[in-house]
């Protein structure tokens, strides 16, 4: 009895193998799912790790201290490897102390100064040159030449001084109190403040010219000699000359800074700058160029610090200096200043407090209160070391680790007043030819460009794809469906490079000359479709019955083609009637390309959003179409049959019964299409000019986040700021699709819940 029961039971029990397989597959699929989630998370973490360093400040550590002979030091300089720094004494002597223990201090003989009394000396960080001014009104430029010697196997840094010739600054031989100079390629500009025996100060300028061609430099000759004293209001105190030799800034005793422009042998007083307005403003304490010499930093004795940049003032049509930056104030007058030669960073300090700042974003990268008061500072050529000389004549060497000073939240998402620009802007321009280029890394134009491309693509694709899906699933004879769907799917498999190439070199030039025709397509095709539909419904029933259900489109096709042809040829006619503008000469020209900018004030470009929208639509239509068609076809036949049986028309059934039931699926279709359009790269890359613009004008180009990554990644050095910034662009894309998809999923669930009852 028992045995039989057991057998009975076993008969209906699942076999052990099946149960095991079931269990195994359950776990296997679960593991697979978890793995997918894990992978996505890992990608997320990887991207996050790549972009996190962008938002970190500078790390600075003290390495060692070396005592140097006490003295009255004017300047501190360093070689590019930070092995042989030097200090410059007020009398012109140079000391090269070794930073390591046991390295002796080099004190080179300055033979060229033997018969001269040095009254001023200035160190040019960019060129590693010194310029000496003497009591007899002469000057000499000395090169400090560092060279790396590999003969012993490891690097040994040698130093050598190479003096040029002595030249006079002015004819009178007055003592030079202050001197500045710039070494542009062809002409060197020397400006000095001299004082004669009568105590009168003069502002003098001289140029040294050197012919330069691809074959190399030629002879140096003295060019111009000028006395600028008469043009300068007040008494000169301090001079600065920009590296390109075009800007000369002179501070006078009235707290003003005069800007002389030197172009084509002519000097002109262009502007008198009063950096600190207001009668109670503290006097100007320090003026220094930032790297590149197109921004000058003015700091007053209260520690208020402003950046002024040279830019085109369109109201007067001249390049003038204007205030572009406000830095966090210091506690008092600045005592040390040093600029970086790699970026717009600089070190500034008051008392025992020093801070490293970055000019573009006006941010403080690092600050510290030291145990001593630094008197001189230098930032190494590679922006990896900082040297401070304190008032006890100790040299402090710091390591500086700040790989991404130009990054930060402000740099990516806020309006920034860049050097040389007339106003604060969102701007993307990541690379320049020279080191003194200021990277412009705003993400805003790229985000706008991404949205712009997506919007125009969807404007074109969604109506066509959805209406097509509704037609194919509800109205067309099912026989055709087996042809239409695969055809659409083939369309989806067209490589986007091919589409982009077509768009750029074939479609764009056609659209450019035939915009009115294309506008006519957009208007005429729906109008003709509706009109022919209405006409069809007015036909006697007998005629209509001749055509079986779902075959009507065959009759419509010729009408469509005719409309197409008519619109194509009517376009130029429309252009001649509506899009006419008067040119300067009073001649009337019918050209949409000229009409659009004249009437709307927007640009007309050959590579524009219309072309991109059109071609990207081609990539998106098949995706939306297939998914939407599936959703519509999956609506139970019973529903539509019931609706039709109750006397609803086909259109009513489609609109009121099928469409709402399938709405969740249709919504997913649009969202997946949107995802494709957001991430689409090659079409945008090839068909737009990749212009990072900030407008939604349909006749101008754009630059999208994805195209930007494709364009700029090959040039971005690994782990560099641009490299990480491109990852940030990827992260934003990720975030955008994540938000859109989440919202879409929530909405889809909501729609599904709403129509579940049907």
């Amino acid at each position: 009895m028992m045995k039989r029961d057991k057998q009975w039971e076993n008969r209906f029990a699942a076999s052990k193998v099946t149960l095991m397989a079931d269990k195994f597959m359950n776990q296997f699929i679960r593991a697979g799912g978890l793995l997918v989630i894990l992978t996505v998370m890992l990608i997320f973490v990887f991207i996050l790790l790549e972009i996190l360093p962008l938002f970190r400040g500078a790390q600075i550590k003290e390495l060692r201290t070396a005592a140097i002979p006490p003295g009255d030091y004017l300047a501190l300089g360093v070689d590019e490897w930070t092995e042989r720094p030097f200090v410059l004494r007020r009398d012109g002597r140079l000391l090269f102390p070794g930073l390591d223990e046991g390295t002796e201090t080099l004190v080179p003989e300055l033979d060229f100064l033997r018969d001269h009394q040095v009254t001023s000396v200035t160190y040019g960080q960019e060129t590693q040159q010194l310029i000496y001014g003497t009591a007899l009104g002469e000057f000499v430029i000395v090169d400090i030449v560092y060279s790396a010697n590999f003969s012993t196997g490891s690097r040994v840094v040698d130093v050598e001084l190479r003096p040029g010739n002595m030249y006079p600054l002015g004819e009178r031989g007055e003592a030079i109190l202050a001197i500045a100079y710039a070494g542009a390629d062809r002409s060197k500009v020397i400006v000095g403040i001299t004082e004669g025996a009568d105590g009168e100060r003069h502002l003098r300028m001289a140029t040294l010219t050197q012919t330069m061609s691809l074959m190399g430099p030629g002879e140096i000759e003295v060019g111009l000699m000028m006395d600028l004293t008469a043009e300068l209001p007040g008494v000169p105190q301090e001079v600065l000359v920009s590296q390109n030799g075009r800007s000369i800034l002179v501070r006078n005793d009235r707290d003003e800074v005069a800007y002389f422009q030197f172009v084509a042998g002519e000097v002109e007083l262009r502007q008198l700058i009063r950096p600190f307005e207001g009668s109670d403003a503290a006097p100007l304490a320090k003026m220094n160029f930032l790297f590149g010499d197109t921004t000058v930093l003015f700091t007053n004795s209260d520690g208020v610090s402003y950046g002024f940049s040279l830019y085109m003032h369109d109201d007067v049509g001249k390049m003038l200096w204007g205030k572009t930056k406000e830095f966090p104030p210091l506690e008092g007058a600045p005592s040390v200043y040093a600029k970086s030669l790699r970026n717009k960073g600089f070190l500034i300090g008051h008392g025992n407090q020093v801070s490293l700042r970055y000019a573009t974003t006006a941010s403080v990268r690092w600050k510290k209160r030291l145990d001593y008061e630094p008197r001189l500072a230098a930032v190494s050529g590679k922006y990896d070391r900082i040297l401070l000389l304190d008032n006890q004549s100790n040299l402090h060497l710091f390591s500086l680790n700040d790989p991404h000073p130009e990054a930060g939240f402000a740099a990516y998402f806020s309006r920034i007043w860049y050097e040389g620009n007339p106003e604060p802007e969102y701007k993307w321009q990541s690379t320049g030819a020279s080191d003194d280029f200021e990277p412009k890394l705003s993400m805003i134009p790229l985000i706008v460009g991404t949205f712009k491309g997506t919007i125009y693509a969807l404007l074109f694709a969604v109506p066509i794809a959805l209406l097509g899906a509704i037609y194919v699933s509800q109205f067309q004879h099912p026989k055709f469906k087996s042809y239409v769907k695969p055809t659409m799917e083939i369309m989806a498999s067209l490589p986007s490079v091919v589409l982009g190439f077509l768009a750029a070199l074939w479609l764009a030039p056609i659209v450019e000359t035939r915009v009115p025709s294309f506008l006519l397509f957009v208007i005429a095709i729906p109008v003709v479709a509706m009109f022919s539909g209405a006409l069809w419904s007015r036909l006697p029933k007998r005629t209509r019955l001749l055509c079986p259900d779902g075959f009507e489109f065959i009759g419509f096709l010729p009408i469509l083609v005719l409309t197409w042809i008519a619109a194509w040829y009517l376009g130029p006619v429309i252009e001649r009637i509506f899009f006419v503008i008067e040119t300067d000469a009073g001649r009337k020209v019918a050209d949409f390309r000229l009409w659009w900018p004249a009437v709307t004030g927007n640009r007309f470009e050959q590579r524009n959003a219309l072309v991109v929208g059109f071609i990207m639509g081609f990539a998106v239509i098949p995706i939306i179409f297939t998914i939407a068609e599936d959703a519509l076809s999956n609506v139970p036949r019973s529903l539509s049959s019931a609706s039709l049986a109750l006397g609803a028309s086909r259109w009513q059934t489609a609109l009121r019964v099928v469409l709402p039931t399938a709405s969740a699926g249709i919504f997913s279709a649009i969202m997946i299409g949107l995802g494709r359009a957001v991430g689409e790269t090659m079409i945008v890359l090839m068909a737009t000019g990749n212009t990072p613009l900030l407008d939604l004008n349909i006749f101008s180009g754009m630059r999208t986040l994805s195209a930007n990554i494709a364009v700029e990644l090959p040039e971005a050095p690994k782990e560099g700021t641009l490299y990480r910034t491109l990852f940030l662009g990827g992260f934003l894309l990720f975030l955008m699709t994540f938000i859109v998809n989440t919202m879409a999923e929530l909405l889809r669930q909501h729609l599904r819940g709403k129509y579940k009852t049907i």
Partner: protein
Amino acid sequence: MKKVIVSLYVMVLTLGLASAQVKVDPDLPSYKPVSGVSGNLNSVGSDTLNNLMALWAEGFRKIYPNVRIGIEGKGSSTAPPALIEGTAQLGPMSRAMKSTELDKFEAQHGYKPTEIKVAIDALAVFVHKDNPIESLSMKEIDGMFSSTRKLGGKEITNWGDLGLTGQWAALPISLYGRNSASGTYGFFKENALAKGDFRGTVKEQPGSSAVVQGIASDLGGIGYSGIGYMTSGVRAVKLSKEGGEGAEPTSENALNGKYPLARFLYVYVNDSPNEKIDLLVKEFFTFVLSKEGQEIVVKDGYFPIPASIAKQTLDQLQ
């Protein structure tokens, strides 16, 4: 595909454009083959130099069939990363390396890369072939391309602003340029815009030929690329430094400094100061800087370098 384009290009050049009057310096030595040259060379870098590298590689391989040379040209800025990571031995660049790039190379290898001047280019400003504009000054170019206008010119947005009349007067200027990885982009920015910024409306094209194609199909188009990419659809404008009669982009004007946008084209190599240079690399450059190599330069539409510079450059490579 690339091969086909290159060989087509060579055909076109030998048929038509090669009738150019440019002659190589007669003092340049002829190339003498040596034994034992074989192996692989990889070149990553400038697009301006892409065709030239391909032609040199072809010429070099005719002498040494056992040598394989792979060439990739996406822009000069791709050369330093490739040299640093060692994925390429040759880094063609249409501009000199920036100090930041030199720093990164030095941080990896302990010494600086060696710069070799291989040809001279007159960076040309192209307009559509029907455009009647004769000559442009640097200030006008700055006014068209730059948003900062550091040379102090007026903003120029349509061809009428440059004095063209008739149908050209109201035609907007459509700007074409290279992508920012390009050395040509950097060189133009530094020399024509005085380190200013490009306007946002400059259409950045991924290659020199895309720039030229874009201009050829756009009546109001203007753009820049190496002179070697000139086709019949575009015309190179005369350029002047300060206004007045401009200089044609020719070999003489590039050498005597009259043409304002003349430049050297470079190839960078990783040459350790402690070791002898690889024979293959050395022979490649001996070939490039020989009479035969510089004749290829002329064939590709660029200008050959003088014998004195060639010798000086070769002496660097020991």
